[in-house]
């Protein structure tokens, strides 16, 4: 039966080439835009180099202090003090990475300015994140304790600072008028990973600022790694219990919020989170869905319109089928299958177009080091989008078709 449908579908599509072209154009471009967007979101939300253990990680990025009487509030990254004194004592996390958000500084090589974003990290940082070392290795706990002036730099920084040198291990790099010894070079990280991005990684003990200063607001963030996926809720619970115990010690504020979020939750909080400390997951998903709906609205109406035309044109065929015993249901199925086949052909063209667009976007390098790619997940989402789109644009015309009166349908031509 399905094979039969398929044959009819192809025959129908061939018969009205112009309509087929319009439909395919609409479907393939709509899906291309969806696919590129999905590839981008996938790059941001799903585990990617070097942050591969997202499923069992929780992220602590911001603290929120509020004065409930006057209505002030202050949102800022966490302080090293908070993370070191309180969060480090948690029992459930297997490891805790602490690092500062990157800050920019300049260095000058032969009078050429290089902007270096440097960040301070602890030793666990290198265990939790799977940085790929092109040469050398990370700094260890001992080097941190000694406040050794050592640095891990990114591939881009190596190129900008040292040019085409084959190896740079042991060479010295100057930033902020301080010399550091390069001990490792890592593969670049895209700028979208704000909490771990850096051009240069330094032991936190060499920080010029007084990182030990008490207070809750600072420049740091943390990643808590659970021993297994199952431990994550327990870890979250322990974290919240700890936060409840942290004293505010600041006359200006009376409320303190800090949360350990999953990756998506964390981004949602940043974009759509509210002042009362609740995360914005629902809000963010609603906003994204609304945008997708608005974007899909026009191509869908267009496709429904064309499908209606297609069906009305075939009303005599439908009349004949009905007269010879096809039930409305069979016809509806037939039409929906036809439409889904059409959508999938459009989807296939869409994939080819997406590959081209993604290649072009990667060449443009709009976000440095963010290399979009079509992986299985993205293709899977596309498949769902295809099915959804095919059903959406096929159901209404099919319903109208099933209500066609046999006599009028036969007369119509």
């Amino acid at each position: 039966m399905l094979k039969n449908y398929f044959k009819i579908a192809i025959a129908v599509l061939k018969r009205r080439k112009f309509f087929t072209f319009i439909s395919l154009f609409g479907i393939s471009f709509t899906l291309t835009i969806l696919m590129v967007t999905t590839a981008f979101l996938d790059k941001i939300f799903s585990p990617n180099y070097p942050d591969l253990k997202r499923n069992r990680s929780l992220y602590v990025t911001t603290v929120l202090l509020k004065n409930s009487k006057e209505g002030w509030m202050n949102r800022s990254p966490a302080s090293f003090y908070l993370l070191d004194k309180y969060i480090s004592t948690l029992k459930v996390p297997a490891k805790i990475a602490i690092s500062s958000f990157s800050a920019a500084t300049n260095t000058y090589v032969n009078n050429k300015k290089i902007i270096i974003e440097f960040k301070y990290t602890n030793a666990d940082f290198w265990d939790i994140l799977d940085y790929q070392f092109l040469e050398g290795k990370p700094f260890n706990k001992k080097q941190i304790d000694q406040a050794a002036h050592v640095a891990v730099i990114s591939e881009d920084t190596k190129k900008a600072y040292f040019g085409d040198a084959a190896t740079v291990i042991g060479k010295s790099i100057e930033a902020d008028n301080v010399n550091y010894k390069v001990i490792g070079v890592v593969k670049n990280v895209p700028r979208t990973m704000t909490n771990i991005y850096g051009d240069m990684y330094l032991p936190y003990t060499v920080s010029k600022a007084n990182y030990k200063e008490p207070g809750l607001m600072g420049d740091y963030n943390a990643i808590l790694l659970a021993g297994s996926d199952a431990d994550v809720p327990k870890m979250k619970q322990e974290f919240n219990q700890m936060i409840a115990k942290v004293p505010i010690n600041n006359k200006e504020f009376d409320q303190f919020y800090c949360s350990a979020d999953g990756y998506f939750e964390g981004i949602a909080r940043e974009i759509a989170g509210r002042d009362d400390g609740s995360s914005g997951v629902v809000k963010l998903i609603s906003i994204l869905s609304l945008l997708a709906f608005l974007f899909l609205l026009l191509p869908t109406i267009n496709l429904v319109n064309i499908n209606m035309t297609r069906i009305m044109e075939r009303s005599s065929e439908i009349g004949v089928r009905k007269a010879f015993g096809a039930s409305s249901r069979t016809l509806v199925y037939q039409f929906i299958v036809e439409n889904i086949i059409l959508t999938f052909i459009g989807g296939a063209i869409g994939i080819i177009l997406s590959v081209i667009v993604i290649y072009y976007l990667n060449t443009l390098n709009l976000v440095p080091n963010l290399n979009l790619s079509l992986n299985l997940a993205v293709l899977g989402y596309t498949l769902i989008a295809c099915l959804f789109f095919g059903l959406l644009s096929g159901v209404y015309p099919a319903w109208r078709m099933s209500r066609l009166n046999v006599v009028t349908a036969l007369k119509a031509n």
Partner: protein
Amino acid sequence: MLKHLFILIWNKRKQNFLFLSELLVSFLVIFAVFSFLVYYFQNYKKPLGFEYEKVWSIHFTNSVKIKNMDSLSMYYDNLRKTLKSLPQIEKVSFSGANIPYSNNNSTTGLTNNGKKYNRINNYRVENEYKDLWKMKLVEGRWYNEQDITSTYIPMVINESLKEEMFGKGPATGKLIGSLEDKIKWKVIGVTADMKANGDFYPAGPAIYAKVDTSAYRWMRNALIKVSPGADAAFESRLYKLLSGTLKNSNIEITHLTDMRKSKNEATIIPMIIFMIIAGFLMINVALGLFGVLWYNINKRRSEIGLRRAIGAGGKSVSYQLVYESLILATMSLTAGCFFAIQFPLLNVFDIPASVYLTAILLAMIFIYMLVFLCSLYPGKQAAAIHPAIALHEE
């Protein structure tokens, strides 16, 4: 004739429902695109109001823990002297984080005659700030060394704020108050608007408040205007010098030209993506409309044949189809305008009504053009229908 066509379409409104809704949504999409474009263009046309070339921003983290006001003041004076001693540096002014083209802003609220004004940009400035940016005064004067505290603290505001508060009349000499009206300032001058948020955004109301000693702890940027001779080698030397002067600080030098570029790109790139998507949607819609109109001709062969038989010329039939589409467009646009007009009426997003009205007009022209072009060829096809054949098909 027009009435006849209108009746014909009105009676077919059920069949035309999809066509109408497609045009309606298209209109709203185009309205959105044009609203952005008109808004950006209107702002782009306004003068910049300052000169950013050869201005550098030096950002330093102030890890010096100076509690004493006098020594804090001395610290900044020393830094200023160091910078001024370099022949390549023409002007120096310390600033808060909200320097033009940065992503930071600082706002405050004001009162005037009991009316509250919110979200006023608050720039902390020094005497040389105006000359550094080559800002223009519209009335009154800028700060000078003689501004010793009199009864009221002097204050410079920009033209936008002046118009909001005082309309067309002069502002110099008037008093304005802080949000709770506890502090009073006396306006001594009004500057021309300075488009600090990039070329595509308005300056917005602003005050330029002279920094007092206690606020120095928040000043982590030094703005400098360099001479044309200041090159990369000079920048490198300057950096070394500053690292020596500001021990325990991270220092970053940024050129305003670079900041402006990335600030403008942050507007242009999303706009281009938006326009590409809208363009694609419109091609899609155009093809769809064309296809449906074309098909409708086949469906209406008998009607067209009849009209020809009873005396309609080929041209008349062709015009009829084009008019019909335009009437359909008019129906959609009427509904579309009803939605679109809510934006200026409700003052959504605080954007001038002229932006929305221009955008509505442009979007209407766009949709009419689109529909006209899409119906041209089907209309021609209709004119070619042979009445004798069309009338005998059934």
